[in-house]
């Protein structure tokens, strides 16, 4: 946990020698607490102080990478319990589980690797494939993993088996190069699992049963003692209530109690009997603290929903997603369709576009560059004025695509209509509703009239 300036000051020599470049040790401590300078600027700092400060600088939840190459992903390094307190940094990997004796294994691997969907201009993907050891010996498991790798080269993997020899065979067969997550070391097999993970340099999940956090602490200490550095935690619960309690407790213990043994990202095994039940469980896991979410059903609609949710929850609340400022077509707009203008705050855009779409009247929607501010805020900040509106209209090329010259501006900036008319000679400026929800009514009764 981060130390305050005063806590750091107590660890410094307090000689005010100025060798660090600051006038006093206190000033230096303050800068250190803001991470504005480095401890090694101090020539006479004690080893004890160094150790303490290093420990304090270690993130409370370790950053763990799974996979190698372009599709590798990182999880952990989270610092808050609620996204509004700062943001959630590393979105959970969404992984599909398949059994090693499944005749469809290679096909599923290919589908997982190839799934792609676009939202707000961002391409979203599944993150990996979990191959669960089912039937067959170590060699059979290694062959299945090799088949998955061949079908989906570069796709991060999770190797699930209780048999360390099977994991070893798969990793030795080449999978180690992909740096898969090994799942899982338990009280029964931790020594052998830790040895295999350490030997191949792979991250290792530790699994207790029924939310036994003390069991996880023991396992954590044991496998770290055996040389494994990158861990993930699977509290081994079944169901929503158990997951939520255990995941919340793990996050709090790591962030608020500085529990080093539990300072690792969480694996949620969300597989359910039906894809719907699984979706509910995976939804909770995405919202509440999972680092990897393992699902069993490759249902495109559910996967699309989960990837969208992940994007929503992991959007930085301080930096809302902005829409590209340009001309958008809602429905199949034609030359005599209405032209509406709004700002490029994504929520503003989606609200307006949603209402226009719901109205059933195809329309042209112009989005002005307001630095991601909503209409009223942008107007107050001078980022959505008559000049900006006129410039957006001119730059968009809308004029050549319509048979009229009417522009609907948001009701909140009704006062701008005269100025906009001056900036856009020949255009008729119409004042739309203040709230997006009134757009359908407006398009029907005012525009259509």
């Amino acid at each position: 946990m981060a130390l305050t300036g005063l806590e750091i000051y107590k660890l410094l020599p307090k000689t005010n020698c100025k060798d660090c470049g600051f006038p006093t040790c206190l000033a230096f401590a303050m800068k250190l607490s803001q991470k504005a300078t480095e401890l090694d600027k101090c020539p006479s700092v004690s080893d004890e102080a160094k150790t303490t400060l290093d420990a304090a600088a270690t993130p409370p939840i370790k950053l763990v990478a799974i996979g190698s190459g372009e599709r590798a992903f990182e999880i952990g390094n989270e610092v808050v319990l609620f996204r509004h307190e700062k943001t959630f940094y590393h979105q959970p990997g969404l992984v599909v589980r398949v059994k090693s004796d499944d005749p469809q294994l290679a096909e599923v691997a290919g589908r997982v690797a190839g799934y792609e969907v676009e939202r707000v201009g961002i391409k979203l993907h599944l993150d990996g494939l979990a191959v669960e050891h089912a039937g067959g010996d170590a060699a059979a498991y290694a062959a299945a993993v090799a088949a998955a790798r061949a079908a989906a080269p570069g796709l991060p993997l999770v190797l699930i088996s209780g048999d360390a020899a099977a994991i070893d065979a798969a990793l030795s067969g080449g999978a180690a190069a992909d740096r898969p997550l090994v799942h899982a070391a338990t009280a029964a097999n931790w020594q052998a699992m830790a040895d295999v993970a350490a030997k191949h340099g792979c991250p290792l999940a530790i699994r207790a049963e029924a939310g036994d956090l003390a069991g996880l602490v023991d396992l954590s200490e044991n496998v770290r003692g055996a040389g494994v550095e990158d861990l993930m935690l699977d509290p081994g619960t079944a169901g929503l209530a158990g997951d939520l309690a255990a995941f919340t407790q793990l996050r709090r213990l790591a962030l608020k109690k500085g529990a080093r043994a539990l300072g690792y990202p969480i694996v949620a095994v969300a597989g359910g009997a039906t894809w719907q039940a699984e979706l509910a469980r995976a939804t909770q896991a995405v919202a509440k603290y999972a680092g990897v979410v393992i699902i069993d059903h490759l249902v495109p609609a559910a996967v699309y929903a989960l990837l969208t949710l992940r994007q929503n929850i992991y959007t930085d609340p301080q930096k809302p997603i902005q829409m590209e400022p340009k001309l958008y077509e809602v429905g199949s707009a034609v030359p005599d369709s209405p032209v509406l203008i709004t700002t490029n705050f994504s929520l503003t855009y989606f609200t307006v576009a949603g209402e226009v779409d719901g109205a059933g009247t195809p329309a042209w929607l112009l989005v002005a560059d307001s630095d991601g501010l909503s209409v009223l805020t942008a107007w107050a900040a001078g980022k959505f004025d008559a000049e900006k509106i006129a410039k957006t209209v001119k730059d968009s090329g809308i004029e050549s695509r319509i048979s009229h010259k009417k522009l609907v501006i948001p009701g909140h900036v009704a006062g701008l209509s005269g100025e906009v008319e001056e900036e856009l000679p020949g255009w008729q400026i119409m004042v739309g509703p203040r709230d997006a929800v009134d757009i359908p009514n407006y398009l029907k009764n005012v525009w259509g009239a």
Partner: protein
Amino acid sequence: MTVVEIPVEKWPGAVREVTLGSSYGGGTRTSTVTVGGETVQPFLGFEGALPHRPALAVEIVDMEPGDWSPELVATWGKDLSDPAKWATRAVEEGADLIALKLRSCHPDFGDRSVTDACDTVDRVLAAVGVPLIVYGPGTADQDNEVLVAVAEATKGEQLALGLCTEKNYRTIVAAALGNGHLVIAQTPIDVNLAKQLNILIGDMRLPLERVLMDPTTGALGYGLEYTYSVMERLRLAALMGDAMTQLPMICTPGEEAWRQKEGRAAADVPEAWGELAERGVSWEVTTAMTLLEAGADILLLRHPASVSVLREALDDLTKGA
């Protein structure tokens, strides 16, 4: 033996308990629904009380909704044209309560009379025994006219009347106050606006035990994260003791999810979107489930399959509580 001390958070505040429906004093309900009462964050039963599980309402309309998703139309079939039958089936599908929207009084959707609206409410009340939420046609003026008449005609039923907004709260609150009903106070995704409206309602002497707050739902992919964080902040403020946030929250994931392209488009969409039947339910379930995690107390849903998934999820989340 390693012992892990579980961090337990104790909060000074609690959410108010709000009861919908009444079986006496003019009320004819055979069951009531009480929500709220939480003294902890959602579903953290290991550290405090969760006396009431969130309730699932199914949304019905007093006229065949021509603009609903084809998937919903196919699912409800001919029940769509008869609110009493629709309500009955919704209860069979697992609804704890019914949310009836009196849309046909809207000038664009039939412009039917207030008397017709009261008739419909009567028929639905007669068809089912569960509590009722009644929404007006959706504009502040019409809502006033319709909801006042409904409130008077159903005195004592303890309906929840919506929407009560900054524009029309005086009329709606007065109608609730005089006839033993509740109000649904809606504000646009903002903690302070929600508090402000609750203060105004409280100033009119409507006990806050008769107010539900609707923080405005953004669907998955369409602002869900804003609703999610505002609800988390409202609930944390309530637990910390801010009286004006200590109201149960009601959310509309059904309407918002099924309104989006993901809930409506059967063709001309990317293959990765999957089939409409699965996509619409996925959108509704994911939106609803996320809102539950943020503290939703009542969810308004549209598809029976979503009701059943959410019911199962709630069974699990409230196990042993």
